[in-house]
């Protein structure tokens, strides 16, 4: 009973923080389950993928209703994120836990640095968001007709080749480490393909569900998802993410971001120690 409540509470906390800071819960759930509850790394990844799908489906519905997500661009890229995730799901069962923990430590460090940079950008610009219609990737380099079909109001995605390659990588990362992969997809779409940040964030969220589902199927069929752990954690994450999305506008996130980066740094150190045995 106590463990069940603690799992749900941990999931709730991960959902709130993830939602407030614009991350999927995966980056928090895997350390929570491995360090907090002693689960093997691969089992924690399987549960995390389930939680990531729940939060993605809930958030993507809202983004689509507000017409912020680019369904066509998402559909193109998720062919490749799902392919990467399929391969990643298979590779994950071949790699030792220590290697996965080492990779996760690298992801944590990268996420921490990205969040610090994002905080600095937001402080300078006031919002940190690209303006509608701005095209940071510069002139497009792909033929018109297909790219036009992927265009949204005021922007047209550029460098589709790079976007496709990056999407395969995002799928691999998601499947190996149990995260949504937004930390790869959002910068890829925004900085490389010239998609406005708000659209990139919404479209990434839309794609996360399918990406995680491709690898979660592999985990599920190979006995890598524990329903008794996944149930309370996913319900907690859903409740936390719902609450977080409602209060995010009213909170000053600067202190929270710094606190979160500190937590990421500590977790990265622990993961590194685990990787080194």
């Amino acid at each position, binding site marked *: 009973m106590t463990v069940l409540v603690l799992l749900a509470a941990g999931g709730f906390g991960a959902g709130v923080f993830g939602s407030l800071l614009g991350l999927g819960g995966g980056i928090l759930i895997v350390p929570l389950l491995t360090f907090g509850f002693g689960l093997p790394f691969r089992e924690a990844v399987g549960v995390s993928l389930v939680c990531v799908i729940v939060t993605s489906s809930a958030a993507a519905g809202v983004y689509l209703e507000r017409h912020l*997500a680019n369904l066509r661009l998402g559909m193109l890229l998720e062919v490749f994120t799902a392919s990467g995730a399929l391969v990643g799901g298979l590779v994950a069962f071949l790699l030792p836990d220590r290697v996965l923990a080492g990779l996760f430590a690298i992801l944590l460090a990268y996420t921490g640095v990205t969040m610090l940079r994002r905080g600095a950008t937001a402080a300078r610009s006031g919002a940190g968001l690209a303006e509608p219609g701005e095209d940071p990737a510069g002139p497009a380099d792909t033929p018109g007709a297909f790219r036009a079909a992927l265009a949204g109001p005021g922007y047209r995605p550029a460098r589709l080749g790079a976007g496709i390659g990056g999407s395969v990588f995002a799928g691999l990362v998601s499947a190996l480490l149990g995260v949504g992969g937004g930390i790869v997809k959002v910068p890829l779409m925004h900085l490389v393909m010239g998609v406005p940040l708000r659209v990139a964030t919404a479209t990434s969220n839309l794609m996360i569900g399918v990406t995680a589902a491709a690898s979660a*199927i592999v985990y599920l069929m190979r006995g890598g998802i524990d329903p008794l752990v996944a149930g309370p954690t996913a319900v907690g994450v859903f409740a936390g993410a719902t609450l977080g999305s409602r209060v995010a506008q009213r909170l000053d996130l600067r202190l929270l971001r710094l606190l979160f980066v500190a937590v990421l740094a500590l977790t990265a150190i622990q993961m590194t120690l685990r990787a080194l045995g």
Partner: protein
Amino acid sequence: MTVTAPDGVGVIESRAAALDGWIALVLRAGTLLSVGLLAIGVVLMSLAGRSPLDATWPALDLGRIPGDLLALRPEGFLWLGLLATLSTPLLRVAASVVGFLGLGERRMAGLGSAVLVVIALAVVVAKGTQA
């Protein structure tokens, strides 16, 4: 006809906007169903006094789920909730394919079908490599 998107992102065609709304509905319904089933499973697990970390977990056996549901056993609701969770994004893709066909966008429908083929491949490969 066009529809204004919020937050200054611009305008989109009304038929595309309708497709977004329809797919959002699929996602919302799928999420509520999944979380509802998982929540029932968690409550039943709590009532039964079972701890998630006590023992090895019950294997997925599709044939057992109806019996577990009728007997109000937590594993039936948890497995069905997990299957609904995994199916929700796939239903979203399937709904998109139907929607794109309705809009006459065959290329986009093809891309959606390609996503479903990758997922089907995941099932086949996972089954073929099961321990």
